[in-house]
């Protein structure tokens, strides 16, 4: 095969000088050799490698910094926007909270002048900004409401919801105990997806899976607002819990009494009288161990 680029092949030692002679004269070969050896002595201009490298590193750092500042700027803007959005959200959705500690009772007014009495260890949460459109609040514990007439007023609890248009009622939602007392007007309660109408002078009580109506309430306001706690056929466990809340103490007692149904009341005004009120009916004695601990025993 005729080699087209014989000079390149010869230069690369792929063909011998003899083979090259088929294409070019000896005179030319001599000149080629001279050209090649002279070319090999050529030197390119100096290139300061390290200086060029450090220059590139400097420039690279700048581009990186630029990138970084753009990113930082972006994050700044994003952070400010996020702050605006969240603060708007929080302002418009800001909850007002009322909470009571153990042995504490408070009363306050809602934005529509409806009044609320909050029993010990309870919490009410609502959004004042939305109150005008939606009278709705969340309750944990026990509260008495005296609601001004107007749009639907809803008390939400973990156990059930209570809706009224305007009336006086008491709601307890503690653990598994849900109770609604209606003192005036009509209250509608939703419990386990069932809506129950509770007329004035009656109460609805639900404990675990059993629920019952209890007619005839003589009092105009809940007993706890008169500084006593009244119970009608309530497991002793709940009585003890209420006692502990009202006096901020810890009561130790035999758990076998937990399920005994208790009817009666105790005052919030004197510990010893109150202890008598809950121990005597069960033929128990009490011992005040120290400031925060009481024991009930036979």
């Amino acid at each position: 095969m005729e080699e087209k680029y014989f000079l390149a092949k010869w230069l690369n030692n792929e063909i011998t000088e003899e083979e090259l002679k088929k294409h070019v004269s000896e005179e030319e070969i001599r000149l080629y050799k001279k050209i090649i050896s002279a070319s090999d002595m050529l030197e390119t201009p100096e290139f300061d490698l390290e200086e060029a490298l450090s220059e590139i590193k400097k420039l690279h750092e700048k581009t990186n910094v630029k990138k970084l500042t753009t990113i930082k700027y972006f994050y700044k803007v994003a952070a400010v926007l996020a702050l605006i959005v969240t603060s708007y959200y929080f302002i418009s959705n800001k909850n007002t909270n009322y909470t009571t500690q153990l042995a504490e009772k408070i009363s306050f007014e809602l934005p529509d002048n409806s009044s609320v009495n909050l029993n010990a260890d309870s919490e009410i949460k609502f959004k004042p900004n939305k109150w005008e459109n939606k009278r709705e609040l969340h309750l944990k514990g026990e509260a008495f409401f005296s609601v001004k007439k107007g749009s639907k007023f809803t008390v939400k609890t973990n156990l059930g919801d209570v809706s009224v248009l305007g009336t006086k009622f008491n709601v307890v939602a503690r653990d598994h105990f849900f109770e609604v007392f209606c003192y005036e007007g009509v209250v509608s309660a939703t419990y386990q997806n069932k809506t129950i109408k509770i007329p004035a002078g009656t109460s609805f009580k639900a404990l675990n899976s059993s629920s019952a109506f209890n007619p005839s309430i003589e009092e105009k306001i809940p007993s706890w607002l008169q500084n006593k706690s009244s119970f009608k056929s309530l497991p002793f466990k709940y009585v003890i819990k209420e006692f502990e809340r009202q006096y901020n103490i810890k009561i130790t007692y035999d758990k076998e009494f937990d399920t005994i149904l208790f009817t009666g009341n105790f005052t919030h005004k004197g510990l010893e009288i109150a202890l008598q009120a809950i121990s005597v009916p069960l033929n128990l004695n009490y011992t005040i161990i120290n400031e925060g601990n009481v024991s009930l025993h036979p």
Partner: protein
Amino acid sequence: MNIKDKIGFCDEENFSNFFRSNSKLLHNYIFYKCGNIELANDIVQDAFLKFWINCEKIITEKATSYLFTIATNLFLNEYSKSKTSSNFKNTLSVNYTNETPEFLLEEKQFHAKLTNAISSLSEAQRTAFLMHRIDGKKYKEIAENLGISVKAVEKRIHNALLNLRKEIENI
């Protein structure tokens, strides 16, 4: 190739090593094209910077040809603007090892002819020929760097030799 190969060039140490083993060749390559040292300096800087910025996209096997592609594109942009004529008379120097006076004179005359002839070569022929002679690159390596076939390199080198001889004979 795995991810590590791709991000390898982002690491300053790896980049520096890559720079040290390729920058002189790239500098020469641009210089062969135009004979302009300043332009070669600028393009080497810009090309490596661009290479580093895009380090994440670079595959190890293609790194050198990618670098040469960047440099060639930069050169085409810059060179069309600058309009410098390529003359290698004063820029291609000679390393004399055998310094007898008589020899020197003859050598000097011949080198003057040679650099003149080199200046008159086409850019493609000159680049391929000098990469082979000065940088000691194999045909295959030149082909890879320039993104052409080995046959094309052979053609350029063959014609370079042919033209250099004719040019020198004519002087």
